[in-house]
């Protein structure tokens, strides 16, 4: 019997479709790996084993399994995404009192319709206000390349589960960098689509005007396969979801770099970067023969995103702050309390700036197709590490891991985070495209993967 525990989603789907292995066998193998590794990595907060076995059995019995693009592919979701029968905890203690979700999130339904098999819920920073992957209630998710180090957050369990070989595919959310930061620290690929592209229906929010959902995987093809399966308008509960036709990306992955102009973001996006982050960026820039570009006022974009996040997040949690303040992670509570006190005039100013900045950045895409920038300033810090030094300045880790991701998600641009398998720890680079051009970011990432410049390194785990 072949071992599918480090196989990509595309490989598993092809093997299941061809009858080389059953979905039930793949599920059993993955459940065994989760049982062995999760006590160390703490990526899963719930394993839906019975459900997964039943779904796998149904796939095996399906006469259409050869047509399912994700036949028998196990996946897991950040625990802010609704799973029928479980309360959607969003990394919190408070939400454990919520009623069990009556129905799966739309994105789970779409992945399962494509043949994928939900296998569990994943750890995350409380209410997604986090870049570390640490959680005071559930314990930290741990980095598969060194379990004494952070996964990054807030989708820390998603990074750990995919990077640690417990699932080939996971979903997470990204408000200011929460897909791209753990992708970087855990050495995997992540896609934050255009704002409004993938429906957030039946997921727990954080900052409505900045929240995105997206996939993590160990190959670009897997990102594209899952992203294509999740596209499509949803008129239901997500007011931001845009009514656009499905624009499949998988057919265009192999078109190569011909005709594409790529530029490296300078200025702000090199300030504070560690030698590892710059080395990763230079490898990618060289592979892409990239020019250079200056994203104007990026530091103010990050500042404005920070203000909007603090205040919209505080608005979401206002009643919980008033009545259940002691039940929050203290670090989250104190940030939200401060956010609740910010005068609204400053928030409107941040939103004025947002429109101005969007126009400036969109103009850059007249001269290039993709922009590259570091994903994180450093490789994975130690768990519990409070501060780090960037360009000689000591700064808190928790809000500053997203220095380079925040100015991009601020205006909703699609990004693929690609991993550089550096030793001893991986680090990621962002491939940023114009709105609705996920196909371009994925195509560039695929070309880099084929060149061997980027890859998800297999961790040396004892179990």
């Amino acid at each position: 019997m072949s071992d599918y525990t480090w196989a990509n989603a595309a490989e598993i789907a092809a093997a299941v479709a061809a009858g080389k292995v059953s979905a039930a066998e793949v599920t059993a193998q993955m459940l065994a790996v989760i049982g062995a590794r999760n006590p160390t990595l703490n990526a899963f907060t719930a394993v839906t084993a019975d459900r997964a076995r039943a779904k796998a059995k149904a796939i095996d019995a399906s006469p259409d399994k050869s047509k399912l693009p994700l036949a028998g592919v196990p996946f897991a979701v950040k625990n802010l995404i609704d799973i029928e029968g479980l309360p959607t905890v969003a990394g919190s203690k408070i939400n454990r009192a919520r009623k069990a979700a009556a129905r799966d999130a739309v994105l789970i339904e779409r992945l399962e319709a494509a043949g994928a098999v939900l296998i569990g819920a994943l750890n995350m920073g409380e209410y997604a206000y986090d870049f570390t992957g640490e959680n005071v209630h559930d314990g930290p998710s741990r980095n598969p390349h060194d379990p004494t180090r952070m996964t990054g957050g807030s989708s820390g369990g998603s990074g750990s589960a995919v990077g640690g070989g417990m699932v080939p595919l996971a979903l997470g959310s990204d408000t200011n960098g929460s897909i791209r930061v753990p992708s970087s620290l855990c050495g995997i690929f992540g896609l934050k689509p255009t704002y409004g592209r993938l429906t957030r229906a039946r997921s727990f929010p954080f900052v409505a005007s900045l929240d995105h959902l997206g996939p993590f995987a160990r190959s670009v093809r897997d990102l594209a396969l899952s992203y294509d399966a999740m596209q499509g308008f949803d008129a239901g509960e997500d007011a931001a979801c845009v009514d656009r036709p499905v624009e499949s990306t998988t057919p265009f992955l192999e078109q190569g770099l011909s005709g594409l102009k790529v530029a490296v973001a300078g200025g702000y996006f090199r300030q504070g970067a560690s030698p590892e982050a710059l080395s990763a960026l230079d490898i990618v820039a060289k592979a892409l023969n990239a020019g250079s570009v200056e994203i104007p006022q990026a530091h103010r974009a990050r500042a404005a995103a920070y203000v909007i996040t603090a205040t919209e997040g505080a608005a979401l949690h206002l009643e919980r702050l008033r009545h259940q303040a002691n039940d929050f992670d203290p670090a989250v509570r104190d940030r939200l309390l401060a956010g609740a006190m910010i005068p609204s005039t400053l928030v409107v100013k941040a939103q004025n700036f947002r429109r101005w900045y969007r126009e400036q950045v969109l103009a850059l895409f007249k001269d290039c197709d993709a922009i590259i920038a570091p994903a994180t300033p450093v490789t994975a810090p130690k768990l519990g590490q409070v501060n780090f030094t960037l360009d000689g300045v000591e700064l808190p880790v928790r809000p500053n891991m997203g220095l380079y991701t925040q100015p991009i998600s601020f205006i909703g641009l699609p990004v693929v985070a690609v991993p550089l398998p550096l030793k001893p720890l991986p680090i990621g680079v962002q491939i940023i495209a114009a709105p609705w051009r996920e196909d371009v970011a994925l195509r560039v990432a695929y070309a880099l993967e084929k060149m061997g410049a980027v890859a998800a390194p297999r961790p040396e785990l004892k179990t």
Partner: protein
Amino acid sequence: MNDKLEVFIDAAAAALDLPLDPAWKPAVKANLAVTLGHAATVTEFALPDEAEPAPIYKA
């Protein structure tokens, strides 16, 4: 600045009916100072009066 911020935090917590354990105040103050600093980074960049905010309501 620091004293003014403490007065502001006490007044805002009372006006907004937010609980504020004295032990939390240093961290709330530090977070508020950082967030106001970011807000200043935004507001010091002059935009024309006609600049629209990003979210546009559509009837």
